[in-house]
C-alpha cells in the first residue's frame, strides 16, 4: 500500500515538509506535521481502526473531534500505556506507537465478533434476567467471563514515568472555544482591557472554520483574528487545552496537553490541569453534528459530513472517491460540493422533499446527483463500506460508494453549562437543546446557543465578549468585528427518524446500543431518559454519548408518542472529555502525596539509626535500631533504659498553644473539664477537654506562665482541631472574653528527659540552672534561656518516672538534643521512640488514643473525679445523659496476663471464663505492653462495670490468631501506684 495514497497533492493545513513516522498495529506509516492520528490513518487508506464494545463490530473513523465514538486506540506501552484515546484528537507526533484494542487475535480477525451472531440473546438488560442459578454464588462464575469480555483497553502496569502539574490561574474573562464566536468574544473583551483566557481543545484555533478550504475567505478571517489577539498582552491563547468541567465559584477545570511535536519540552508536564478562576465566562463551545440511524450505520466508511469536510479541507485527505451524502439539512451539502470539486463522484440523499433551489443549482453546476425525499435504509460492507440501499420516491435502489457522509442536524454543545445543574431547554426552531439559563457572570455565544450561521456567531461572540467584560467592570465602545459570510443557509430542517432494515441500526456506536434496544427498554417500562441510559448503557461510553444522546431521545419520544421536552433531557456530568487521574493528582504523588512534617531533630534521628514512623503528617522515631533488631526487642530495651537510667524522646509533635489575655483563666476554666482558674503561676496541670456532647475530646498539660498567660499542649493528632475549637468558642460564643490563642507548635523543639537519672542529666546540661526538687518539683516550671533562645523546663511525666519536658526555640532544637545526649552519656541516657513511649504510658495507666476513641466519657476513663462537682464547662450538661452515666458502661481497668508464656493483644475481646464466646463480649483490650517490671504482658481495657471489679478473672479472645488468654482485672497503674518515682 503506497504511503498517503488518499492525500491530495496540495492544500490543507499540514506541513508536507515535516513528515512524521508512526506505527499502527506494528505497521510503519507516515503522516505530516499538522495531522491528527485520524487524518494520517485516513490518508494512508486505513479504514478499520477499532472493534466495538459488545459485538466487536469493525469500526472506522467517524468524526474529527472529541465526540469520536468508534476510533479508540491505545498509545504507548508499559507505564506509558494509555488506552481508549480517540484517534481524531491525537496530534500526530514522531515515533507514536498506536495499537487498536478490544480485539483478539487481530483487528481484522477478531474471535469475539461472534458476539454479533449471539446478538438476539444479548439484548439490552439480558444480564438482569439470567445467570441467577444454579447456586447462590453462580454469578461469581459467570462474572469471571463477562468481566474478561468487557472493558476496552488495558491500563498500564507500572508507575507513570511522566510528570503532571496542577496550576492555579485567574482571568477576568474566560472564553471556552476558539471558533468564530469565541475568537470574536475574546477580541471584544480584550479590546476593553479585560484579561482574557481563550481556551481551545485543538492545536489550532478556528473551530469549524478549519473545515473551510485553506485558501478561502474564512481562512483569511481566521488569520486576521488570530493576529489581532496575539497583539494583546492581556490575552492568553490556551491551545491544546480542554475545559473539562465547570464548577461553582466560576471555576473552570482545564487540562492542557504538552505539544507532542515539541522535541524539547523543557521539563513541561505531559499534561497540566489548571484551575481557572474567572470573573466571567463565555461559553462558545460550538455544536456537534448528529448521525443518521439506519441499518449497519456503524460500518467503517460512514462519517459525519462535517468531519469528512474537515479531513478534505484541513488535512487534504480524500477518504472516498464515490460518496453518498445523506442529510436532513443544508449544511452537509457543502461537504458534497467540496468533494465534487476535489474530483469525487457525489450523490446527495436529502430526506427533505424539496431541498433549497440554490443548493440544487450549485449541485447541478458541480455535477452532484441529488435525490430528494430519500434516505439510506441499509449499508453493505464489512471492514469498509461498499454499497448503500436508498429509499426514495422512486422506491428502493442500491448505490455503490466508498464513503458515506451523514448529517442528522446539529446539537449545541451544552455539556459545560449543564455541569452546574442548569437543565438545557429545548428549542423547536433548531430542534435541539440550548442552555436553560445562565447564573451571573456566565454567557453563551455562537452555535452552542443555536446561532449556527458563521456571520451571526461572530456577532453573537462580540456581544457576549462585551457583556462578559462589562460584568467585570470593563466596558468601552469597540469597533465591530470584520464580517465573514459563508453563504450558509438554514441548518436543521427535518427531524431524522430512524429507519431500520435488516441489520442493526446503531444509536450509540461505542456502547453498541441499537434502535431495537431502545424499543425493548420502552416495552419493559424503562422509559425515562435516565432508565433508558441505565438499562441500555446508552451514553455510558468514553464519548459520553456526544453523538447519540439526541437520536436516542428522539427515538424514545417517538415510541412514547411524546415531544422531546416531555421525554426529558440528559444530565451531563464532568468531565467533558476524559481526564487522566494522574493529571488531576499533578505533583501530589509519591512522597508529595501529603506534605511531610519534620521536627527540629529530624536529621539527627535519620543519622542515628531511627526507624521512622508516619504519624499523621509527622515523621517520628518509631524506635532506634541500636536498641534492638526489631520493634519488639527495641521497645522493651528502650523502656528498661527509661526505668533504670534515663531516656530522651522527641516530643516536638505535641500541639502547643499560647493562650493570653485578662480572661485567659476564665476561658480555660470553661474549655477544660477540670479547673484552671486557681492554678498557680509557674505550675502545670493535666487537663481534659470534652466535646459538646460530653465525650472526651482531647487531653494535655497546660502551664500558667503568668497571671494572663498559659502554655497549652494538646495531643499530636488533635492539635489543629483543638486550636480551631478554641477560636470557634472565642469568636462565636464568648466574644466578650479578652483572650488570644495562637499555635506555637512550630516555635518550640520539645524533648522529654525521663528516668531516675533525669535530674542529674539536666544538672549536667544546664549547670547554671537549679533543677532541684525544691526549685522544680513535680508539675513545676522553670523558664530560662539557652544559647540565646527561650528555654522552658516542665517537670512532667508520662512514663511514671521522674521526667522533664524541655522546650527550646526550634532553631536550637537539634543542638540542645545533642547537648543533652552528651551530658547524659555518663548517666546512660539513650533516645527512645514512640513505641516505647506508648508502652511506658500503658505501664503507668495513662490513657491515650486507643482509649480516647471518641466514644468514652471522663467516667469511663476513670477521670470523673477531675471534674468533681464543677459545672459550666464545655460538654458538662450532655455528659450527664442517662446512657453516658449507666452503671454498666465499659470503663478503664488494668489487665494482667495470668497464663505463663502467653501474651495479651490490643483488640482482644473479653468474656467471662465460663461463658460462650459469642457477640461483642464484656469489653476489649485497648492497649498492651510487655512489662519488664512485671515480667509479663499487661494491658489497659474497657470493661463492663458489673464485671470490672479488681481481681475478677476474664478470658481475652483473639480469633485472628486463634488465641484465648486468661487475664485478671487489676489497677491500671502497673508501676509505682503511690507516685514515689515522680516526686523526690
Amino acid at each position, binding site marked *: 500500500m503506497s504511503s498517503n495514497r488518499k492525500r491530495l497533492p496540495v492544500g490543507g493545513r499540514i506541513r508536507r515538509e515535516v513528515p512524521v513516522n508512526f506505527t499502527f498495529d506494528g505497521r510503519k506509516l507516515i503522516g505530516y506535521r499538522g495531522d491528527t492520528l485520524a487524518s494520517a490513518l485516513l490518508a494512508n487508506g486505513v479504514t478499520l481502526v477499532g472493534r466495538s464494545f459488545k459485538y466487536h463490530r469493525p469500526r472506522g473513523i467517524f468524526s474529527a473531534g472529541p465526540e469520536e465514538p468508534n476510533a479508540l486506540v491505545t498509545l504507548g506501552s508499559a507505564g506509558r500505556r494509555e488506552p481508549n484515546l480517540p484517534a481524531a484528537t491525537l496530534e500526530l507526533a514522531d515515533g507514536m506507537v498506536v495499537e487498536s484494542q478490544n480485539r483478539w487475535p487481530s483487528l481484522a480477525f477478531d474471535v469475539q465478533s461472534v458476539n454479533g451472531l449471539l446478538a438476539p440473546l444479548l439484548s439490552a438488560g439480558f444480564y438482569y434476567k439470567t445467570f441467577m442459578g444454579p447456586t447462590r454464588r453462580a454469578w461469581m462464575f459467570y462474572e469471571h467471563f463477562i468481566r474478561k469480555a468487557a472493558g476496552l483497553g488495558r491500563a498500564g502496569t507500572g508507575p507513570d514515568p511522566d510528570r503532571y502539574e496542577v496550576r492555579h490561574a485567574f482571568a477576568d474573562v474566560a472564553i471556552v472555544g476558539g471558533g468564530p464566536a469565541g475568537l470574536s468574544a475574546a477580541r471584544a473583551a480584550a479590546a476593553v482591557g479585560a484579561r482574557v483566557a481563550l481556551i481551545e481543545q485543538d492545536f489550532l484555533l478556528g473551530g469549524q472554520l478549519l473545515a473551510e478550504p485553506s485558501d478561502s475567505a474564512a481562512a483569511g478571517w481566521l488569520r486576521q483574528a488570530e493576529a489581532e489577539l496575539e497583539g494583546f498582552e492581556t490575552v492568553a491563547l490556551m491551545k491544546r487545552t480542554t475545559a473539562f468541567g465547570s464548577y461553582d465559584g466560576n471555576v473552570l477545570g482545564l487540562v492542557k496537553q504538552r505539544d507532542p511535536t515539541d522535541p524539547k519540552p523543557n521539563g513541561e508536564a505531559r499534561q497540566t490541569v489548571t484551575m481557572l478562576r474567572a470573573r466571567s465566562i463565555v461559553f462558545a463551545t460550538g455544536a456537534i453534528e448528529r448521525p443518521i440511524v439506519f441499518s449497519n450505520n456503524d460500518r467503517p466508511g460512514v462519517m459525519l459530513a462535517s468531519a469528512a469536510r474537515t479531513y478534505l479541507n484541513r488535512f487534504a485527505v480524500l477518504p472516498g472517491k464515490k460518496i453518498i451524502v445523506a442529510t436532513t439539512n443544508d449544511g452537509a451539502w457543502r461537504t458534497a460540493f467540496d468533494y465534487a470539486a476535489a474530483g469525487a463522484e457525489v450523490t446527495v440523499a436529502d430526506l427533505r422533499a424539496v431541498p433549497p433551489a440554490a443548493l440544487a443549482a450549485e449541485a447541478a453546476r458541480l455535477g452532484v446527483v441529488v435525490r430528494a425525499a430519500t434516505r439510506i435504509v441499509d449499508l453493505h460492507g464489512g471492514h469498509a463500506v461498499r454499497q448503500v440501499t436508498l429509499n426514495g420516491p422512486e422506491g428502493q435502489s442500491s448505490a455503490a460508494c466508498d464513503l458515506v457522509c451523514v448529517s442528522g442536524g446539529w446539537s449545541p454543545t451544552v455539556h459545560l453549562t449543564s455541569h452546574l445543574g442548569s437543565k438545557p431547554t429545548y428549542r423547536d426552531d433548531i430542534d435541539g437543546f440550548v442552555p436553560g439559563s445562565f447564573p451571573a457572570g456566565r454567557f453563551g455565544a455562537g452555535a452552542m446557543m443555536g446561532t449556527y450561521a458563521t456571520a451571526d456567531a461572530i456577532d453573537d461572540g462580540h456581544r457576549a465578549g462585551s457583556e462578559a467584560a462589562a460584568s467585570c467592570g470593563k466596558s468601552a465602545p469597540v469597533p465591530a468585528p470584520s464580517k465573514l459570510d459563508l453563504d450558509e443557509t438554514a441548518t436543521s430542517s427535518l427531524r431524522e427518524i430512524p429507519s431500520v432494515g435488516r441489520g442493526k441500526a446503531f444509536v450509540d456506536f461505542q456502547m453498541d446500543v441499537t434502535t431495537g434496544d431502545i424499543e425493548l427498554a420502552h416495552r419493559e417500562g424503562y422509559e425515562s431518559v435516565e432508565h433508558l441510559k441505565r438499562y441500555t448503557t446508552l451514553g455510558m461510553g468514553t464519548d459520553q454519548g456526544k453523538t447519540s444522546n439526541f437520536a436516542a431521545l428522539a427515538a424514545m419520544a417517538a415510541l412514547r408518542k411524546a415531544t422531546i421536552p416531555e421525554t426529558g433531557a440528559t444530565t451531563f456530568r464532568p468531565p467533558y472529555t476524559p481526564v487522566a487521574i494522574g493529571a488531576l493528582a499533578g505533583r501530589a504523588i509519591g512522597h508529595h502525596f501529603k*506534605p511531610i512534617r519534620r521536627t527540629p531533630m529530624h536529621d539527627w534521628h535519620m543519622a542515628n539509626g531511627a526507624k521512622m514512623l508516619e504519624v499523621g503528617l509527622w515523621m517520628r522515631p518509631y524506635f532506634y535500631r541500636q536498641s534492638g533488631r526489631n520493634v519488639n526487642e527495641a521497645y522493651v530495651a528502650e523502656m528498661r533504659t527509661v526505668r533504670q537510667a534515663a531516656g530522651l524522646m522527641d516530643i516536638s509533635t505535641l500541639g502547643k498553644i499560647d493562650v493570653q489575655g485578662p480572661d485567659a483563666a476564665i476561658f480555660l476554666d470553661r474549655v477544660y473539664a477540670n479547673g484552671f482558674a486557681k492554678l498557680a503561676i509557674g505550675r502545670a496541670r493535666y487537663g481534659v477537654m470534652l466535646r459538646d456532647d460530653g465525650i472526651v475530646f482531647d487531653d494535655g498539660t497546660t502551664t500558667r506562665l503568668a497571671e494572663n498567660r498559659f502554655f497549652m499542649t494538646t495531643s499530636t493528632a488533635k492539635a489543629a482541631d483543638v486550636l480551631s475549637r478554641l477560636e470557634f468558642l472565642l469568636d462565636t460564643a464568648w466574644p466578650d472574653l479578652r483572650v488570644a490563642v495562637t499555635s506555637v507548635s512550630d516555635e518550640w523543639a520539645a524533648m522529654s528527659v525521663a528516668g531516675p537519672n533525669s535530674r542529674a542529666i539536666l544538672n549536667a546540661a544546664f549547670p547554671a540552672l537549679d533543677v532541684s526538687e525544691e526549685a522544680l518539683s513535680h508539675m513545676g516550671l522553670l523558664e530560662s534561656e539557652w544559647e540565646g533562645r527561650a528555654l522552658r523546663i516542665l517537670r512532667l511525666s508520662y512514663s511514671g518516672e521522674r521526667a522533664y519536658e524541655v522546650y527550646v526555640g*526550634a*532553631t536550637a532544637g537539634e543542638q540542645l538534643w545533642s547537648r543533652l545526649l552528651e551530658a547524659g552519656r555518663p548517666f546512660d541516657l539513650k533516645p527512645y521512640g514512640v513505641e516505647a513511649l506508648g508502652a511506658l504510658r500503658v505501664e503507668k495507666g495513662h490513657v491515650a488514643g486507643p482509649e480516647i476513641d471518641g466514644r468514652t466519657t471522663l467516667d469511663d476513663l476513670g477521670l470523673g473525679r477531675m471534674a468533681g462537682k464543677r459545672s459550666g464547662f464545655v460538654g458538662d450538661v450532655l455528659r450527664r445523659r442517662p446512657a453516658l452515666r449507666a452503671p454498666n458502661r465499659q470503663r478503664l481497668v488494668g489487665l494482667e496476663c495470668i497464663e505463663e508464656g502467653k501474651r495479651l493483644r490490643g483488640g482482644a475481646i473479653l468474656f467471662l471464663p465460663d461463658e460462650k464466646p459469642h457477640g461483642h463480649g464484656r469489653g476489649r483490650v485497648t492497649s498492651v505492653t510487655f512489662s519488664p517490671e512485671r515480667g509479663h504482658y499487661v494491658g489497659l481495657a474497657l470493661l463492663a462495670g458489673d464485671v470490672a471489679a479488681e481481681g475478677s478473672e476474664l478470658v481475652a479472645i483473639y480469633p485472628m490468631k486463634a488465641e484465648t488468654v486468661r487475664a485478671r482485672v487489676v489497677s491500671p497503674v502497673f508501676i509505682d501506684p503511690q507516685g514515689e518515682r515522680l516526686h523526690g
Partner: protein
Amino acid sequence: MASLTSSRDFSLCVADCPLIQIEGWDATLRQFEKSVSASLNTKLPASVGETVRHKGLLTIRVAPRRLWLALDEGTEAPALVVDPDLGCSVPLGEGRVRLKMAGPGIARLLSGCIAVDWHAPTAAPGRAVQTSFHHVPVLFLRTGETACELIVPRSFARSLSDWIAGG
C-alpha cells in the same frame, strides 16, 4: 541564608524569620494600635494584607486585630511592651522560615504552588497574602516585580521547598 536552587530563571533561598505577633482586644483596639504605633514609631497597616516597612521592620496586618512584625536579618527586635489590658504579643520567629524566591519564571512557578493571582492589586509589591500551599498555611509576601517570599511553618519548610525546587 542558604541557597536551595538557582538557575537563570529562578532562585530559591531559605532563611530564618525573626517574627513577633501582636494582637489587640476587640473593645480597645484603637488604643492598642495607637500605643503600638507610638512604640514602634511607625504607622500600622490599615487592612489585612497591607504592610508597612520601617527601618528593617516590616509590619503586616494578618487579621483584623493581629499584626506580624517581621525583622530583617540582623535587625534588633524593637523594644515593644504591650499593655495586657490592650493586647498581647508572642514571638513566632523560631517556628517560621522564609523561602525567598526571585527570577523571571517566578509567576509561573508559583502558580503550581499557591492560588494567588500574581497580577492582582492584592498581590502587588508590598502586599501580603495568607493562603495555603499544599494544605499548609503560608504567608506570601510580594517583595518585587519578580521576587517574593513565603513565610512557612518550620516543620513543613523542607517539604514545601522541595516542592518549589521540583517545579
